[in-house]
């Protein structure tokens, strides 16, 4: 897939109907219906994802990550946007103005550091996902995170050997 480098003022939208998402208890999950790929976003990336869906630019979203220095926040958001574009999960928004008041709540100052840096995990083996027993074979955080293998310490096994935790920075 070809994509242009994201810019701070660029606006994006979910690449629907091929891509669908839902925020479950503050964490966005995304499916690429064509490939069956599953993406789990951490709370910080979920906030960025939802604000992107509202039509906010990367610059405006960077302000929501108030715990980071502005330049770092912008770089982090642009980095995530670039990854989402590369995965084909979002596309440049065709026209339209930014909403006057986004329906997604911005975190209050002081909340942002707790969210951490935005990151997502990609699960590209659909059969593996479907076969994973969500009670007996999963980590404490639940499906689709596998239970750590014996001897692997506390580090969970990588969900996608080809592309482990791509957006973590």
């Amino acid at each position: 897939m070809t994509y242009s480098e994201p810019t701070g003022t660029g606006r994006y939208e979910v690449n629907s109907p091929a891509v669908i998402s839902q925020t479950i208890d503050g964490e966005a999950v995304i499916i690429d219906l064509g490939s069956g790929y599953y993406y789990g976003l951490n709370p910080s990336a979920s906030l960025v994802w939802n604000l992107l869906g509202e039509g906010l630019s990367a610059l405006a979203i960077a302000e929501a990550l108030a715990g980071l220095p502005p330049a770092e926040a912008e770089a982090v958001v642009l980095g995530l946007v670039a990854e989402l574009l590369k995965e084909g999960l979002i596309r440049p928004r065709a026209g339209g103005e930014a909403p006057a008041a986004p329906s997604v709540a911005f975190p209050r100052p002081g909340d942002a550091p707790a969210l951490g840096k935005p990151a997502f995990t990609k699960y590209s083996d659909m059969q593996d996902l479907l076969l994973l027993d969500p009670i007996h074979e999963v980590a404490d955080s639940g499906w689709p995170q596998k239970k750590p293998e014996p001897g692997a310490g506390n580090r969970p096994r990588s969900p996608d050997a080809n592309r482990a935790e791509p957006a973590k920075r």
Partner: protein
Amino acid sequence: MAGSGRDVHRPRERLRCRPTPDQELLLQACLLKGDDAVRAFDLWRARTDIDRLDHGSYRLLPLLYANLHDLGSTDPLTEKLKGVYRRTWYTNQLLFHRAAALVQALEEAGLETLLFKGGALIPLHYKDLGLRPMGDFDVLVPTERATEAARVLQRNGWRPRLLFETQRLSRDCAGFVSGDGQEVDLHWHLLEECCYEGADQPFWHNAVPLSLNGIPTRALGAADHLFYVCVHGSRWKDVPPVRWVPDALAILGGCRFDAADPGHRAAAEPGHRAAAGRDAPGRNAIDWNHILDLAVSRRLVLPVRETFNYLRDIFGAPIPSAVLETLGRESVTRSDRAVHAILSRPQPHPGYFIVTWLFYARARRGMGAPRRVLGFPRHLRNLWSLEHYWQMPGYVIGKLAERARNLRALTASGGRRD
């Protein structure tokens, strides 16, 4: 309904295929509100080993997660339950995506489609793809166009699990599977009990419009769906049939589905009831007289009566007293009672031969008795998807052995069905 051999007025029968006490606690934890749900959850947690959960209970876990989340529970199990919810959302999204393409292909071929069970209950009543796990997708097409529909499915990469033609001649539906393992049940009759001409006419007549991922189709109307869910739920299944309870309550807008009554406390207020013939604002309008007509005309009074009483007694479902009283007064023939008793017991059951004969004979009411009798072996061969008559004794012996194994397993597990 009158005549000899009738057993008149037997009110408040106990539901034969009733959830076990543990399943009932889980249902209450999933469906009730406030302290009632918390109490039920605590009791269920204390009595149940999550590692040895039966599959029927497992299918309730996403709903349990949603209820615990609404209640602000901090139980450590919640994270795993959330995972089950996520997995359900994921698998249902993939299934709905595939099914929408199939429905589109059928509709473009000029075949009307009507969805029921999860494919219709989720978008219309649960309104959340993560709440109700689905194994397959159920599509009803007009009876006379079943073969055409099967061809459309096969052109789109779905293959029948068994010989389609033998199933069309003997059953209400046939299972199809896609290359990536998704499953669809193609129905040409809604109920296995009613495979005769015109049996599905009211269901088509009362169907409501439904958009499946943007593809226009139809779904069973609320009253028909409630009727179907209750009849289906009253039957014995390999997977314990407990999900019919939330399905029915979702249609009725009862318990946690009752948006109009946030303070509703079902278990603590057994007297809670909707006025006969009216539904509270926000609930689905149910044509109760239509359900009564269906129950009588399809000879399914017993399953409807037992399940309605259960929903009302245990979950305070908003079923009008007048409906229960009318069902209680309705007479039931001995043969209908026998059919219900056999279908509520672990299968395969030797009595299923009798049930098969009765359903077969009902579907061929216009046929002379000798032709009906002579045609029965052929019907059985088709029903069992056998190529030759000589295979039939082996099939029966295999089924009897399966029954013996099932009964041994049931005895060993103290009645649990894993």
